């Protein structure tokens, strides 16, 4: 069977290639993996994104609850599952799986009174397993980019289950937001060999993401 099927061009990127793209993306733009309130990230830079803290009353006026969220560069696995059966959330047909870790740090202020300003950072790391699907993203008249959208996330070994569900939903939303910044232009998927109008895809099969179309 032909590679282009009913269309005239096809571009396919293996999961290893997408992981190379992703590694390059987050190496150039690490701020999309690092989010912190001003206690940790005073201003947004190329290395970290500053987010708003929660404002709370203190005996001396108001204070903040500060967080630092650092994701490890994620790795993608396109269906079929390449984990050798070790992933708690393998990709189903047409799906991708994402694996990463997140380190959560809270600027803990356990003291009271005049000690309330003293910070004791507390950190914890969690392994995250998520699944999702690609979707095309239009720029101008043409669809030109693929974005990966997560729909489910699993954190293993947290009890009780309700806490696990709360954390999973929180992490799903945060990782989804982080990953939405990663865009894979079609021009990159064809290493610039041609520009084309999307006719079919993106679809995931055989450890690849594929797009089909006609040359512009």
């Amino acid at each position, binding site marked *: *069977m032909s*590679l*282009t099927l009913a269309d005239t061009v096809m571009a*396919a990127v293996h999961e290893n290639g997408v992981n190379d793209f992703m590694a390059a993306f987050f190496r*150039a733009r690490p701020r999309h993996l690092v989010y912190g309130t001003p206690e940790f990230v005073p201003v947004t830079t190329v290395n970290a994104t500053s987010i708003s803290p929660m404002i709370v009353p203190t005996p001396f006026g108001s204070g903040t609850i500060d967080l630092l969220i650092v994701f490890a560069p994620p790795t993608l696995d396109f269906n079929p599952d390449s984990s050798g059966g070790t992933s708690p959330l393998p990709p189903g047909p047409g799906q991708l799986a994402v694996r990463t870790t997140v380190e959560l740090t809270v600027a803990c202020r356990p003291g009271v009174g005049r000690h309330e300003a003293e910070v004791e950072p507390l950190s914890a790391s969690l392994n995250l397993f998520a699944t999702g699907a690609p979707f095309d993203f239009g720029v101008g008249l043409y669809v030109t980019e693929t974005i990966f959208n997560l729909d489910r996330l699993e954190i293993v070994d947290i009890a009780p289950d309700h806490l696990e569900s709360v954390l999973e939903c929180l992490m799903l939303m945060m990782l989804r937001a982080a990953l939405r910044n990663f865009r894979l232009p079609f021009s990159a998927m064809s*290493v610039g060999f041609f520009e084309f109008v999307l006719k079919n895809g993106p679809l995931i099969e055989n450890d690849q993401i594929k797009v089909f179309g006609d040359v512009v």
Partner: protein
Amino acid sequence: MPDILVAADEIAVTKIINAAEAALGKISRPPGSDSLGPFVVGWGASASFIGGTVDLIAPDVVRLQNISMNYTLDFTFKIDLEEFFGDVYLDPICLDLGDFGEICTPKICIPWPPPISVPIPTYSGSVTFTADFRPKVFLDGTQWVIEIEIVRVPSLEFDLATTAILELIRPAVATKLALIPGIGLFLAGAVDAILLAIEAGNLLGLLGAILTPFVSGLHFEIYRRNRLFEVLPASSPLDPAVTVMIDSLTAAVQSTDKDELVVTADISA
């Protein structure tokens, strides 16, 4: 499995190569000169390529059918009339004066001017041919390049051009010769003699010699990208450009229920 695999069928490759023909544009050869019969002809030539359809043949042939080479030729003939015609004399004409003998005009030698240059109006023509090309992948400094390069030079037909160019030569030579004092009686014969000396066969050979080099070694560049490939341009100081390294690149023809040009690439972050 390669990191990236790109396939294009014959319809797409035709578009890609037609675009490469347009990108190549008009190419020129350095002006030259050659013999044409007993004359020396200076020439200038340029050519461009357009059209054609692609027939892909595994494992590595890109056959380009009915591609047109549009060309333009400029000729200037250098004619040394003295060398060509030799010395021409008007024999003496004598008048018999009976007992007084005869009186004769002197033998008159027609003085030829120095060698003349005869510019021929620019000729534009077109020749259609079919040729096999092969994909060629290489690094040009810091850039990956994919070209298709002609395998064998096809036979080019210039018969119509030969006839047309001879028709341009005739009035051009006649106009130039007409300026020579005393040529009037001989003009038509001189033009015929020059055209006869040129010979269609010689002109056909000259056209082949001038225009075939445009086709031999012909290659169309269908891909050129930096080895350090920009995936995303910088969108702000906070989001600089994203690049990957293209470590290797291949191009081949694959035949299944369709014939496709398949390009593979391996990249690294």
